[in-house]
């Protein structure tokens, strides 16, 4: 039953805010809806932890197992903290004259629809509906990326729409091929695209068709994950959209897209009878992942815009997760899931801090942001700690997951290790070198008119720190179960 709440609340919120979103307290209503979604997601998670995987509705329209419930909880959590952050952030933007009430209404309504679409993508059992909700999530954010109506933001939104549109069209073809293979065994009709049904008969599915389907699905959804060389839309959309949107795009949408890839990978591995890391799907993912890590690391070096830089860092980290999932096996999948969580929490925290930093400096160019520690100590510390965390410095959780990924790579695929280490080193040097003067340099920046919302930043970083020091046993079991579902 909880599942209907999880999906119903954000969609209701979207409609409500579309109709009455120009009220003064719309930001609070937005946060309230996000909080209710989080509550519902919490209940759903508790239920799965207690009773195990769950199928709900009709012939099993929704399917929740440890793998997706963990992403549902993460999505609802980050969506809630982002709503908290966006409350003062968007107020300041409005006072700076960058936004009007009408655009804020659009923003709040689309925000809820976007969260709802992602949750639908995560919980649906139907591979076709998964496609539909991924596309819906893109559409909900196109107008958000162009919210400021600057030439650059319009260009970014156009690129986002066209590239992701083409990508997702390829994924549709992949889904058609999947249905084509499934229909022979499961018969035509609505149930042939249900993931649980497909998973049950995966060893009988036609291998060649599934291989072809996976290539299309990987390229299609991979565009959304931001895998190189299909990543072009990502830095633009992250840099030009409002910061709360950068945070949810980076922290959540990329995860959801990768989730779609993983669901397909389980099927194709089953059809090919592939062992861990031996299959064609795993190899493809490792290739794309490694390319993204290396390419992004070297592009980070050349960035001057702070949000663009962290967008490239997202590509790097999603590449790392894709690589880990591509390796397969219990440890690598566990590490991949852990890294997904850490990246979501840390990167959204960084975007929160960066958002306020750019607001006070009035620019996103890194040379213009100096000495945050003097004018806004909390923002400065938030940004510094977030950066240190994302760069994988112990004791933060990112270190634990990166360490696991790299040691597994050394064991299973030694050839990849130098590339990974080189990329991580380059990324470390360039990001740290650029953030350091932003935080500690000399400055004469003005103060912000509103109290910045930094509770979410420290909440996220606290979690990341905690998970780096100690993963509670039930959480570890949970990750292990999820990793087992991925064929670990």
């Amino acid at each position, binding site marked *: 039953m909880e599942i209907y709440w999880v999906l119903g609340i954000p969609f209701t919120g979207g409609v409500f805010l579309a109709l009455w979103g120009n009220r003064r307290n719309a930001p609070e209503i937005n946060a309230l809806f996000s909080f209710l979604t989080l509550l519902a997601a919490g209940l759903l998670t508790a239920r799965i932890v207690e009773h195990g995987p769950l199928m709900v509705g009709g012939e099993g329209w929704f399917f929740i197992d440890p793998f997706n419930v963990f992403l549902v909880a993460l999505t609802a959590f980050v969506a809630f903290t982002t709503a908290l952050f966006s409350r003062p952030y968007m107020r300041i933007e409005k006072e700076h004259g960058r936004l009007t009430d009408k655009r804020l209404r659009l923003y709040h309504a689309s925000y809820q629809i976007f969260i709802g679409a992602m949750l639908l993508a995560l919980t649906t059992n139907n591979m076709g509906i998964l496609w539909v909700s991924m596309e*819906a999530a893109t559409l909900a954010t196109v107008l958000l990326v162009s919210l400021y109506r600057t030439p650059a933001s319009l260009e970014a939104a156009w690129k986002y729409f066209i590239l992701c549109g083409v990508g997702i069209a390829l994924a549709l073809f992949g889904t058609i091929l999947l249905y084509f293979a499934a229909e022979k065994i499961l018969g035509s009709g609505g149930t042939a695209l249900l993931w649980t049904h497909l998973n049950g008969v995966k060893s009988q599915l*036609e291998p060649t068709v599934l291989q072809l389907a996976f290539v299309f699905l990987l390229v299609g959804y991979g565009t959304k994950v931001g895998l190189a060389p299909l990543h072009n839309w990502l830095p633009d959309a992250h840099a030009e959209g409002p910061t709360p949107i950068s945070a949810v795009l980076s922290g959540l949408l990329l995860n959801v897209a990768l989730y779609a890839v993983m669901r397909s990978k389980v099927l194709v591995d089953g059809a090919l009878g592939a062992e861990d890391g031996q299959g064609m799907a795993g190899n493809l993912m490792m290739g794309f992942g490694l390319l993204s890590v290396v390419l992004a690391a070297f592009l980070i070096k050349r960035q001057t815009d702070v949000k663009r830089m962290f967008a490239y860092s997202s590509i790097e980290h999603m590449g790392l997760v894709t690589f880990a999932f591509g390796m397969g096996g219990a440890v690598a999948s566990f590490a991949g899931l852990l890294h997904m969580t850490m990246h979501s929490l840390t990167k959204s925290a960084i975007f929160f801090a960066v958002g306020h930093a750019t607001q006070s400096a009035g620019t996103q160019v890194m040379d213009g942001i100096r000495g945050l520690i003097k004018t806004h100590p909390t923002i400065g510390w938030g940004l510094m700690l977030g950066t240190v965390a994302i760069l994988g410095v112990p004791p933060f959780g990112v270190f634990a997951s990166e360490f696991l990924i790299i040691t597994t790579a050394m064991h299973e695929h030694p050839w990849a290790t130098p590339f990974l280490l080189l990329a991580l080193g380059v990324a470390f040097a360039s990001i740290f070198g650029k953030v350091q003067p932003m935080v500690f340099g000399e400055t004469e920046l003005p103060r912000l008119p509103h109290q910045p919302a930094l509770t979410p930043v420290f909440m996220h970083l606290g979690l990341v720190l905690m998970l780096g020091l100690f993963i509670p046993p039930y959480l570890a079991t949970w990750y292990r179960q999820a990793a087992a579902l991925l064929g670990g």
Partner: protein
Amino acid sequence: MTLSLTYHLQVVNFLAAMLLLIAFAMLSQRRIVGLVTLFAWQGAALSLSTAIVAWSTDQHHLYYSAALTLILKVIAMPWYFYRLVKKLDVDRDVEPMINIPTTMLIGIALVIFAFNLALPISEMSGTVTRSTLGIAMASVLLAFLMMITRSKAIPQVIGFLAMENGLFFAATSATYGMPLVVELGVALDVLVGVFVLGIFFFQIRETFDSLDLKHMEKLKEK
């Protein structure tokens, strides 16, 4: 195979050929209004062939699919695009494409590639319409080519929608269409997408004074 079925198949094959022909015509069409008309015709061919497949193979859900295509892609969207073109005052816009012959040659190469790609799949397929799968793939690739070669916003979107047409045709010929919920969902997405883009065109127009995407080449890696 009964006589009537072969007869129907010939009609479907004819419509498939029309689909491909229209895809080529779109590649060479310079004017936006002409492009919208061609898009409507492509939708009509798709809708009719889906209906015939539905009738001759007794797949009732395909009737819904055909009706959906008819309403959305033959009536609603072209109407909306005509209005948009008028409102945005771009109906005199002519795309300065000099390399139509080259584009056509690339298009022919794509068709050959598509047929080769579709061959192993259509051999595995059990549908009577499997031979048209190659045409479906070819029209997807041609629409893709159109998206790449155009520099104006509306033609790019029409290219995108034509790609969707090709994909639907592929679904019909390989598997008699997708499950109905999925098809409804996709149609809803496409509809919402077109409306979002309508709003978006006005924003672009307001900011750039034109719908030419050549103005949008600022965001690049230096």
